[in-house]
């Protein structure tokens, strides 16, 4: 193209594609699209603002300057106690969980090529929920190991439940390759089993235990401390870069299997790896905060519509997921303080109208 431009400038101006500016850095060249980048920065800004508000607002309000001072080592003991022991771990848990859910949802929707797909659909969240409800409901009656597990090991149990379900779905749908349609159908079946096992457990138990299980099943960030943040943060630090590195295959995964083979993609490996990372991310998030509904489903679709890309943008979905969860927790904490409304309720109340607004004022027809 460049050589052509030097020899015959007149012809280049005739064949130039309008509106697509190339960006060339040595051997790498890409199309520069300002809108996704702008939206990305706006998302980052929104996350920062919401996170700052989350640290500043509450029963013990601190000025933004006070928050900054405390974060950098200053501030009085009261402020540093509130920020470091109460709000920062809770806010960070929300941020990490939201980011994990957003990324997991975006990856799942891109791989399965279905806007309704989310890790919930593959049974991962329901598996975690079933394991946790089993512990909560039987823990009250049996005590002993279940009682201990109910207080300390609930996240571990949930993580195991989610991972086992995810692996089972993958194994059951493997038949000389992982077909995404078959995977979705197996996921539906597995999800139904897990959901109904949970429901059955809820009717089996005492109403108090059922209520506690219901709170967990709605997703909550109440009383999250550093012991919740550290494992999630460490696992995300490993998983997120790996998933983002793998994202170049997502473009190819948009096509059907034959085209993908033609493009030289190892279809089964790529698909399985991406879905496995999504399942692990979702299980981790569920273990940390319970199944927070709707984030994984909606944020990729919102991000897709805001950025105007062809498939859910990964980083933007992460940012929006984190913003949504932190913002929802902020509202749950400050507006409905005495009710202790779980964050899972508020995410849907915040996110659903926005998605509906985007649907009504559709920028363009997007098909995932």
């Amino acid at each position, binding site marked *: 193209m460049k050589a052509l431009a030097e020899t015959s400038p007149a012809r280049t101006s005739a064949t130039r594609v309008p509106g697509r500016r190339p960006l060339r850095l040595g051997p790498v060249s890409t199309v520069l699209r300002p809108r996704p980048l702008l939206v990305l920065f706006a998302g980052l800004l929104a996350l920062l603002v919401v996170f700052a508000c989350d640290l500043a607002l509450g029963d013990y309000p601190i000025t933004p300057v006070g928050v900054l001072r405390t974060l950098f080592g200053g501030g009085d003991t009261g402020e540093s106690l509130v920020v470091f022991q109460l709000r920062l771990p809770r806010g960070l848990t929300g941020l990490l969980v939201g980011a994990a859910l957003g990324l997991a949802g975006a990856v799942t929707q891109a791989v399965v090529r279905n806007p309704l797909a989310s890790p919930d659909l593959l049974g991962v969240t329901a598996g975690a929920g079933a394991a946790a409800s089993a512990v909560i409901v039987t823990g009250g009656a049996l005590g002993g190991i279940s009682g201990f597990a109910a207080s300390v090991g609930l996240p571990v149990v949930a993580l195991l439940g989610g991972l086992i379900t995810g692996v089972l779905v993958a194994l059951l749908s493997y038949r000389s390759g992982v077909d995404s349609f078959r995977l979705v159908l197996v996921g539906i*079946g597995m999800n139904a089993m897990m959901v109904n096992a949970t429901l059955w457990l809820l009717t089996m138990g005492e109403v108090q235990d059922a*209520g506690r299980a219901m709170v967990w099943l709605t997703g909550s960030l109440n009383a999250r401390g550093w012991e919740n943040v550290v494992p999630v943060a460490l696992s995300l630090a490993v998983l997120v870069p790996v998933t983002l590195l793998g994202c170049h295959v997502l473009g190819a995964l948009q096509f059907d299997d034959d085209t993908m083979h033609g493009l030289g993609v190892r279809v089964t490996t790529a698909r399985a790896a991406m879905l496995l990372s999504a399942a692990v991310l979702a299980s981790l998030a569920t273990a940390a905060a319970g199944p927070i509904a709707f984030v994984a489903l909606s944020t990729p679709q919102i991000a897709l519509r805001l950025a105007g890309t062809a498939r859910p943008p990964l980083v933007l979905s992460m940012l929006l997921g984190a913003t949504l969860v932190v913002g929802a927790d902020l509202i749950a904490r400050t507006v409905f303080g005495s009710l202790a409304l779980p964050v899972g309720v508020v995410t849907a109340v915040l996110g659903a109208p926005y998605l509906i607004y985007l649907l009504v004022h*559709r920028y363009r027809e997007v098909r995932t």
Partner: protein
Amino acid sequence: MSRSLADRNSRHSDTGSSRSRQGDDPAPETEHSPRTPVDRLSNRRRRRLIGIALLGTLLLASCVLSILIGAKLISPDAVLRALLSTTRTENHVIVYDLRIPRTIVGVLAGSALGLAGALMQGYTRNPIAGPSVLGITQGAGLAVVLAVFTLGITGMLGFVWFSFGGALLSALAVFAIGSFGRGGATPVALALAGAAISALLQALTSALVLLDRQSMDVYRFWKVGSIAISDMTVISQVVPFLLLGLLLGLASAPGLNALSLGDDMAAALGHNVTRTRTVGVAAIAVLVGSAVALCGPISFVGLVVPHIARYFSGPDHRWLLPFAALTGACLVLLADLVGRIVARPSEIQVGVMLAMIGAPFFIALVRRRRLMRL
């Protein structure tokens, strides 16, 4: 964009050659013998007719079993005597007031949910669509919880109209939102509007349930779903709506076939796309609303039955819809039957049994057969 194009192309070829592709099925006799298209056509037709006959027989057998078998052990001839006698013996009461209404509800609700699921997957062109995806079940759930929370209604009979109204309202909202945007109620817009509305309603329900222990106690039992309704007056009030929904649903098969070629092609074939969709959504709303009103959210049937039916009927909606209705009825009755047998003298709700028996069967089916795509 290229993806949607490829998708549409494959769909064209899918429906266009659905009859001549009969040889792709793993039936052994079609492997080697060369067949003319006419042969294949008649062969598929015969298989579908046999399938309908088999399903009808199975449904009849499950109805008989559902009346014969229950939590209380009554010998078949005692059941027969109770059926024929008019005196109010204990057996007579059990058969007429418990088992027969239950069987009727099972057949009606099962066929309604199966048909509604097939309609939903057809209209949204999405294999994951089901009653809970379009927010209809959640609307019914919220209405029930509101009835408990504000009016203090606790009896199952009081819920029927609330859940029916809630289901209709939420279906209306989903369709309105889905059709506001550019291009009308496209499949993606419908599905996403449904997902958003159902999440919103579910969140409101959860909030209410968490605030109020009495609502929680009612909700957790309602949510599981059961066909053990013994009041014939409730059944007779809901049944007309159900039958209307079944008629509307079965009648929309040709329109659905055209819509599966894409909106433009359907319009070119002379179908009024908007009207076809409106009728379809109305049928879905009435079907799911009355089924949920009778027996709570049994979401598994609507989601899974269409896939099972599609394996046997193929993608043609004129066959798929009746297959889905019959399969749904059989599945619900059989699952309820097993739930009554395994946990004697109490019983396990049909929703749980369906998932526990139906899901493994479904997974096995998905693994074994060639995938029938939507």
